[in-house]
Each structure stands twice: as C-alpha cells, then as structure tokens.
C-alpha cells in the first residue's frame, strides 16, 4: 500500500506526470495562440528545451540583494503549487483527500503571487517594486470573487473536500450548468491568477520591463516559469473538478481499472477544454490598467458573485424547506 502511495506521489499521477503535463499544456497553449494569430508556433518539445536552457544560464545577483531569499522564493512557490496538485482528483478520488482540502488548495495557490511580491520588493529595482505592488493589488481585487465562486459548489454539495464535490456532481449534474455565473467568474479569476492577458498587469512588458520578473535569471527564472506552468495544470484541474465533474462520468463503469482509465481520460479532456478557453481569452484581449481592473473587478465580478451566492443560498433554502 505504501509503495502504491509513493508511486502516486512521485510518478503518476503525481510529480512526474505533473511536470510532463505542465509542459504539454504550455506547448498547446502557445501553439493554439500562435495558430490563431496566423503564426506557426513552437514545436512539441519547446517548453522542455526552454526549461533546460534556462537552468544552464548564468545567475546574476544585483548588488546588495538578499541572495538566500532570492533563491528561496521561487522554490517556495513551486513547492506550494506542486503540493496543491496532490489534492486534486485525477483518477478518481485523491488519496490525500480530507474535509477542508479545498481551503488548503486555495491557500496554496495564492503563495506564488506572494512570492512574486517578495521578489519585486527584494529586487531593489524601481520596475520590480512597481510590479510587485501591482501583483498584490490584483490579488486583492480578484481573490474575493474567485474564492466565493469556488466555495459555492462546496456549499451546494455539502462538503469541504474536492473529491467529494466531484463525486456529488456525478449524481446531480455539473456545477457548470447549475451555477453558470460561478463558472464564468472562476475562469476569469483563474486567468487573473495566472497573470495572462487581459490581466498580465504585473508583468506588463511594455510598461515596466518585466515587473517582479526583471531581476530573475538562470535557474530562478526557470523555476518561476515552471511554477506558472504547474499552476495552470493545478488551476484547470481544480476548476474541472469543481465545475465539470472532475474525472467522473455521469454513470458508473463496472470494472475498476476501466473506470480509472476513463476517469483519467475525462480529466485530460476537461482540462484541455479549459485550456482552450483560457488561450482564446488570452489571444482575444489586450492588457487593462490596474485602476480599470479595480473598477471592473468590484463593479462586475464582485456583484456577479454576490448574485451567485444569493441564488445558491435561495436554492439551498428551498431544498431544505421542501
């Protein structure tokens, strides 16, 4: 039993699968975006090549910078998202599931933004500190609607465990259909968390060079990029589990091994669907300003989420009452 758990964590569907799938999703993201822009796009192994090349580059420390903290921050961010991935159901229930792992995953997925802010602050560079401040400002704006939208399935399913919420959807239907507003807000929040267009404000290339990423070089940059790729996998896996029913079909399949394989294929399919939606969103929009995001976030995102919360509470009240 222990050996199986070790294989789950380290190989499949744990860390090795996570890294491989992260690279694959990165390739698909860039290829789809390129084809939509009438370009060719990178070949299949490009993200792997980029990662390996970046690991070999020289690490440049700006003068007076705390080197230990600079080394630790990307590692902390990577560790956080890789741990968060373990709680997401990929082939059926996650073996680490417990009541409240939804809250844990949401918390762990916030840590990369904090790491970026730390890096921006520690860099002793005007562009980086402006970028770091923008990253945290964005966190305040989108985090509240994002959390609320992701907690609504928990409310309806009556459980705090992601795996159980996915299981609940097998009998009662997908939350994407029951709570469509929450689904849309969840996708927008995920795009903001991943800092892609239209929300790539902290990394705005044409305004503040690269924001908090400016002074990252060599292996630190490679690890931070890897963190973002892994967060894409973890984030889409989370949304797939909460809103699209995770690795489960609406009916039961009898031999257990067939159910596992079918579940895995479902997971792949649903995360790919979410990736296509996110890639299209990235291609179709430009970057907005932080104060405009403030406007839009509080006026539209937050009020849509409050509306969704109201609807869910109403449905719950009716269900309990009858």
């Amino acid at each position: 039993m222990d050996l199986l758990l070790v294989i789950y964590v380290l190989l499949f569907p744990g860390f090795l699968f996570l890294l491989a799938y992260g690279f694959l999703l990165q390739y698909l993201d860039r290829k789809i975006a390129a084809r939509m822009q009438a370009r060719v796009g990178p070949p299949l192994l490009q993200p792997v090549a980029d990662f390996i090349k970046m690991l070999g580059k020289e690490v440049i420390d700006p003068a007076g910078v705390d080197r230990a903290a600079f080394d630790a921050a990307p590692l902390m961010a990577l560790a956080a998202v890789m741990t968060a991935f373990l709680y997401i159901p990929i082939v059926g229930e996650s073996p680490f599931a417990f009541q409240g792992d939804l809250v844990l995953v949401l918390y762990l997925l916030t840590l990369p933004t904090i790491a970026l802010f730390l890096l921006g602050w520690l860099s002793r560079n005007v562009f980086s500190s402006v970028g770091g401040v923008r990253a945290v400002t964005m966190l305040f704006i989108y985090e509240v609607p994002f959390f609320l939208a992701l907690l609504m399935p928990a409310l309806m399913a009556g459980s705090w465990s992601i795996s159980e919420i996915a299981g609940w959807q097998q009998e009662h239907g997908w939350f994407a259909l029951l709570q469509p507003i929450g689904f849309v807000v969840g996708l927008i929040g995920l795009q903001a968390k991943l800092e892609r267009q239209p929300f790539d404000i902290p990394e705005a290339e044409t305004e503040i060079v690269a924001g908090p990423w400016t002074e990252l070089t060599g292996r630190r940059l490679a690890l931070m990029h890897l963190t973002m790729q892994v967060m894409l996998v973890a984030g889409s896996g989370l949304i797939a589990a909460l809103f699209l029913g995770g690795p489960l079909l609406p009916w039961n399949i009898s031999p257990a091994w067939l159910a596992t394989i079918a579940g895995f294929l479902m997971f792949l399919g649903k995360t790919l669907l979410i990736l296509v939606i996110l890639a299209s969103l990235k291609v179709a929009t430009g970057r907005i300003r932080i104060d405009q995001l403030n406007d839009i976030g509080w006026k539209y995102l937050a009020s849509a989420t409050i509306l969704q919360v109201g609807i869910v509470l109403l449905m719950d009240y009716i269900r309990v009452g009858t």
Partner: protein
Amino acid sequence: MSGVLREMLENLCSKPFTILYPKEKVPIPKGFRGKIAVVDEKCIGCSRCARVCPAECITMIPDNTEIEVKGKKIVRKKRPVVKFFRCIRCGLCEQYCPSEAIIMKCELSESGTDKEVLVQ
C-alpha cells in the same frame, strides 16, 4: 469583439502566414536590387560608377586589358573594385554605367564575416 473572434477562428483553421525560410523561398521580383556584381567583359573603365556612388565603396584600380565594345577594340586603363559590405544597393552605379558592366543581381545579398571583402 465578434470581429476578433471570427478572425481568430478563421486563422485557426487555415495555414499560417509564415514562410518557413530556408525550406520555402520567397519569389524575388524582377528588378530587385540585390547583390552587386561586375561584368568584366563589358567594363570600359570610365569611372562613372566610382564617382556617382554615395557610399564611396567603388575604387578604380589600374588595369591594362583589351576590351571589345560595339565592334571596336579599346584598351581599358582602369577597372572597378567594390567593397561588398559597404554597398548600400542604391543602384546609381547601374543607372549611370554606359555599358551595363556593373549590375544589381536578383539575389539576396548574404551575410559574411569579412568586412573588407571585395567584388571585382
């Protein structure tokens, strides 16, 4: 917004616009000002090309060859030598040469590492 989405979908379903050089090549139109070349048999050594070049990349070196032009034989006293990478490909030398001895070929001028390489 719908215009953007429609164009995105159209592009997704069609071939990309990129030309995969050097596997695919761009057709070069006639009259393109490419590599500079000296046609030795036609040059009469009048030095007009050297005088008219804006970049001063053509120098005339002493020579003593017999050239046949329009049925008559003359002895050419000088011939041009071009610094290939200083040429700005404006085509003035080709325009002012009386015997079509210095031309711009329809080939892309390539890159090299020797700044002082000469064409003669």
